[in-house]
């Protein structure tokens, strides 16, 4: 009996290592959040196939996450120690959450030869991908700005086109208020401030902070500053508009629902829009809707838009062979001469390498090129501030309280206290 057991144990020890020695095949796992077409199995498998043409020794398994349960899955995987090797998302998760918790690998070596190219595209991207100590946890692939969108047909009928600058896609706060009133007078629902959950909250954040050029956090990202005079003024303004009916607040929906309302012509503007949303919602657009992307209104006419940065991070799984294979894959996806453009193109966003230039003009996604117009307005990437997950819940709860008649100053104080405690 004992002998048998010993034999079995020996076999268990030897067999896997023997298998590993047999060939140098490494298997790595990639999890991706839904970023453009990176949820489409055919596209991603296609990339992996081309990768295997160059690196047949690395096998890549891919899993697709979604924003409603993806975080739970990563949390579960971290606790279960079954994290993937590579994950595709933004700095708020890669750097500020899992990186800060010590779960990610330092990937500074990937940056060695591309840092200048990335800084040339946007210094904000480079800053967002590292922590305060300068350790890089993310290797960026693409970026965008989150904008809003208006239905040109409704604006025209309400005689509100005069309030926007069609050339630069910008408008002032004053004109935004006038436009909303004009739309209301013409019988349209101008816009809905959605606050049923955290989905798409970058839109509501940008709306509030831009109105009177407030800041969402302080400059070194250590505290939330919604209680500043500018932000309180903005929230009070929005509350007034909701009370008057020139805007609506809906604690029952999130951005996805709001976009559906925009597409079916129920509302005249949407607060959660970007190049990727423009592509994916084309099919459900009613004839009465002509989407026209706009920057968020601001008092000085110069918007500061919320950025989106997406890239790859590596979970620390304690296996060097897999880590190296993962780095090879990431490097290939982002920087290979033939692959870099298709990788970004699939996201529908813009390259974080200045050398890649304009990748949309003259392609099927021609419309996306228009969004590059907004890139200069890219603002501070404050999503890496601590307590981010707490803040997100506090945020939609704050909006719910304000738009159900709460006192702005008191509610903001609660929000700031809760969000800042324990940063």
């Amino acid at each position, binding site marked *: 009996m004992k002998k048998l057991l010993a034999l079995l144990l020996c076999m268990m020890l030897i067999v896997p290592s023997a298998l590993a020695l047999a060939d140098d095949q490494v298997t790595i796992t990639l999890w991706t959040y*839904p970023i453009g077409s990176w949820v489409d*199995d055919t596209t991603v498998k296609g990339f992996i196939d081309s990768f295997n043409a160059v690196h047949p020794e690395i096998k890549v398994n891919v*899993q*697709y996450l*979604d*924003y*409603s*349960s993806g975080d*739970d*899955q990563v949390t*579960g*995987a971290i*606790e*279960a*120690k*079954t994290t993937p090797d590579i994950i595709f998302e933004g700095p708020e998760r890669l750097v500020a959450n899992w990186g800060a918790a010590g779960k990610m690998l330092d990937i500074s070596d990937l940056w060695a030869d591309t840092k200048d190219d990335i800084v040339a595209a946007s210094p904000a991207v480079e800053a967002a991908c590292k922590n305060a100590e300068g350790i890089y946890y993310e290797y960026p692939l693409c970026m965008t700005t989150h904008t809003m969108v208006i239905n040109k047909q409704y604006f025209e009928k309400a005689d509100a086109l005069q309030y926007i600058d069609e050339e630069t896609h910008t408008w002032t706060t004053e004109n935004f208020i006038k436009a909303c009133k004009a739309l209301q007078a013409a019988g349209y629902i101008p816009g809905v401030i959605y606050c049923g959950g955290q*989905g*798409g909250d970058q839109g509501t954040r940008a709306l509030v902070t831009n109105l009177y050029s407030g800041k969402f956090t302080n400059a070194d990202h250590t505290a939330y500053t919604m209680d500043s005079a500018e932000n309180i003024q903005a929230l009070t303004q929005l509350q007034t508009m909701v009370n008057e009916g020139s805007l609506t607040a809906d604690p029952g929906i*999130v*951005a*996805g*629902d709001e*976009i*559906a*309302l925009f*597409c*079916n*012509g*129920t509302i005249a503007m949407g607060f*959660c829009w970007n190049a*990727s*949303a423009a592509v*994916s*919602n084309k*099919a*459900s657009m*009613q004839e009465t809707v002509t989407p026209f992307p706009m920057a968020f209104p601001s008092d000085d006419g110069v918007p500061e838009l919320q950025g989106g940065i997406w890239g790859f991070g590596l979970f620390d799984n304690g296996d060097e062979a897999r880590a190296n294979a993962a780095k090879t894959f990431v490097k290939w996806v982002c920087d290979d001469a033939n692959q870099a453009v298709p990788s970004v193109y699939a996201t529908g966003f813009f390259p974080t390498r200045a050398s890649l230039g304009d990748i949309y003009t003259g392609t099927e996604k021609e419309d996306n090129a228009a969004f590059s117009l907004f890139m200069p307005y890219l603002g501070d990437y404050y999503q890496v501030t601590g307590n981010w997950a707490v803040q997100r819940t506090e945020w939609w709860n704050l909006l719910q309280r304000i738009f159900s008649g709460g006192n702005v100053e008191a509610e903001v104080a609660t929000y700031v206290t809760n969000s800042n405690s324990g940063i």
Partner: protein
Amino acid sequence: MQATTTSNPHRKMKVQRGDIGSDHSVQALTPYKVIGVILLIILALLFLFPLYWIITGSFKSPQVINAATPQWFPLEPTISNYQRLFEKPAMAWVWNTVFMCVMSMILTCITASMGGYALAKKRFTGNKLIFSIFIIAMALPKQVILIPLLKEMAWLKIHNTLWAVILPTVGWPFGVFLMKQFSENVPNELLEAARIDGAGETRTFLEIVLPLISPGIGALAIFTFINAWNDYFLQLIMLNDTQVLTISLGIAKLQSELSTDFGLIMAGAALGSVPIIIIFLIFQKFFTRGITMGAVKG
């Protein structure tokens, strides 16, 4: 068992009474009854409506679904929702669900019938204590233990596999409790006789006890199946990979941040519910019998 073999004594009686001209149903045509039945029919329609809305919705195009004026019936039915659904491993989700439910069912029936028999008929030391712990544990909310359970599954290296859902389902004490109640009806004389005849424990259990408690096993099987089918929270925590999802999780995951595609979601919901509804309708008698027996004994 009593509950099912007595085939509705009331109905028989009614026939007899009908003969002497005092039929209950004739007498019962009071305004209360009429209103009651009308209300009942309205309620039945309300209960049927969600299913109708799932099935018709799954054939509607995104424009129709998002239109402010809903269509009661898809005027231009499209299968594009299903096409998009099957671009995802939707069939795998269905099979995963079936595998998970059936496996939970089989394992629960085996372990519970053995355990229930032991608790009912074997006077071993600690019998009473074990039974009390089972009873107490039944009242516990199982979601409470999910975080440690997650750790445990990781340690066993079965996190993110269907077994991580199956094993805790099998561990749930209700089955043992139910089977104990059924096993108590097995006459002691039969067991004694078998012992005198020299039958071993295994033979006694397989040849005498099992046939007698088989209706109970049927009830338990149905119970376990439905519970495993509906235990969304456990599945949500334990399963990650697209390939190992159950259909419930799959449907929940079809909602994305930037667009709520109700057509696609309804197609998923239809795929998840229509097969089991058909099974339910075919085996309706067994389902109701199982539910009733589970309760009578539980």
